[in-house]
């Protein structure tokens, strides 16, 4: 059937066709995005309180994930300095010690092997401790000679495997590897990561309820308007569109506030850690980084959109008509 052209409007009818979908779609979305933002800004306190609640919920998991990331990278940096120290038996003479240390370079996975004679060890010890006068009294050097091995990779499996091999050497009396505390730090980092992710999931559900409720209030307060829009043929999607932007704005604003507080917390923690920088180099909190911030904002916006979508369609439908 042809579209009716009312009298007196024929000129307009000739000019206007059915609207070009894509351009109008974008234009209408832009209008809705801006007007929903404006509506939120018209109620600054209610908007701010919602944003604040969202940010509070997001902050704890975000902090845990930052801790996880920082610990993991700290472990990584310690690990790259991982060494295996082989203490040689007292009856190994320096010549033999040298020879062993050179032979060890042949083993796969070993990139460095340094022989430290018992004299060199004593010297280092006395200069490091300032006990040279006491040590001079000693008739015998109590320190054993040692070989310090640098593994090719700071990999726990490799270190363990090499250590087992070294234990078979007759000259080696004992082996010291700083692996157990690395493993412990790794476990702690992993637990932070797990907590961060699980709490992130739980709090995401909480945040979606917060946003969903804000959207519900908006639907209820606009009930008469929504009825009229339905009567003139507005689909649920059309009615929901500004509300979806409301959700997106809430999510992004909440994530933005979270990011801001997070950056302040990291800076504060680092200035506290600065005092121990000499003792524990590498122990610093790492900020979320650009990709972390983008992820935070993106997931905030997506979460806002999703919860607004579920909530708005549900409550718009509940109005009936």
């Amino acid at each position, binding site marked *: 059937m042809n579209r*009716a052209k009312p*009298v*007196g409007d024929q000129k307009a*009818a000739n000019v206007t066709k059915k*609207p*070009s*979908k894509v351009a*109008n779609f974008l234009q209408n979305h832009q209008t809705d995005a801006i007007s929903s933002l404006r509506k939120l800004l018209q109620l600054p306190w209610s908007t701010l309180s919602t944003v604040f609640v969202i940010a509070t919920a997001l902050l704890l998991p975000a902090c845990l994930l930052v801790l996880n990331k920082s610990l993991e990278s700290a472990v990584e940096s310690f690990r790259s300095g991982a060494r295996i120290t082989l203490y040689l038996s007292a009856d190994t003479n320096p010549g033999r010690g040298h020879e062993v240390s050179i032979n060890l370079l042949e083993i796969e996975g070993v990139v460095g092997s340094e022989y430290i004679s018992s004299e060199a060890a004593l010297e280092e010890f006395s200069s490091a401790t300032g006990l040279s006068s006491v040590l001079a009294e000693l008739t015998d050097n109590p320190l054993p000679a040692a070989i310090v091995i640098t593994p090719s990779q700071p990999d726990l499996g490799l270190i363990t495997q090499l250590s087992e091999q070294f234990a078979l050497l007759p000259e080696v009396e004992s082996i010291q590897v700083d692996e157990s505390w690395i493993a412990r730090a790794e476990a702690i980092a992993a637990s932070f990561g797990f907590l961060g992710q699980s709490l992130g999931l739980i709090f995401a559900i909480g945040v979606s309820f917060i946003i969903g409720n804000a959207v519900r209030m908006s639907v209820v307060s606009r009930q008469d308007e929504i009825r009229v829009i339905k*009567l003139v043929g507005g689909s649920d999607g059309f009615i929901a569109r500004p509300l979806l932007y409301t959700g997106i704005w809430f999510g992004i604003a909440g994530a933005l506030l979270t990011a801001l507080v997070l950056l302040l917390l990291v800076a504060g923690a680092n200035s506290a850690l600065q005092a121990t920088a000499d003792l524990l180099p590498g122990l610093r909190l790492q900020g979320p980084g650009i990709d972390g911030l983008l992820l935070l904002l993106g997931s905030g916006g997506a979460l806002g959109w999703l919860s607004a979508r579920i909530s708005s369609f549900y409550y718009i439908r509940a109005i009936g008509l």
Partner: protein
Amino acid sequence: MISFDRVSKRYESGHQALSNISFELGKGELAFLTGHSGAGKSTLLKLILAIESISGGRLHVNGTDLARIKRRQIPALRQQIGTVFQDHQLLFDRTVGDNVALPLQVAGYSPQDVRRRVRAALDKVGLLSKEKTYPIRLSGGEQQRVGIARAVVNRPRIILADEPTGNLDPKLSAEIMSVFQQFRQVGVSLLIASHDMALISGLGQRIIALQEGKLVGGSPRSAAADQEYQ
């Protein structure tokens, strides 16, 4: 365009609002729906808009079977129908222009098209100067005309009107009726509920009369068939 075939409507409360209604309204036809208040006029219009669902019989609107219509198809149905509501149904936090724009925005028109068409529709009901005014500042009759402008702005195929001249003086009523006549001439079907018998009888149009939910007179057949008969 609209075809009622033994349609009945019974509300959940048990109230039988309409029983065994059969009539047809063809393309480019205008019919008045008359009857006392409570006779079922508003219910009949609500069935056409799928605001209420039918309880029995068959109802087709522009080819759509309303007994089988799906929820998500309802907006498209309503976009083909311009409706003048008895209680205006205007939004008081929007200007007159924005109120009239609503059916166009819903249909996804660009802001430029919306503006031009809104002005054309307001011009037609003599309210172009009130485009930026809020409805609360208008008289009842002016609000009624805003409702009419909103009903015609999307150039619908069907226009439904529930007491469209209820608040208008005889002169304005006649003007509004002539606007409706113009739409009829370009193929729009109109169903106008009214109890203003003085106005209706003067126009010599087809009348569908309801009493306690039943058809009691008028011409259930189309006007074209009637003319042939005469």
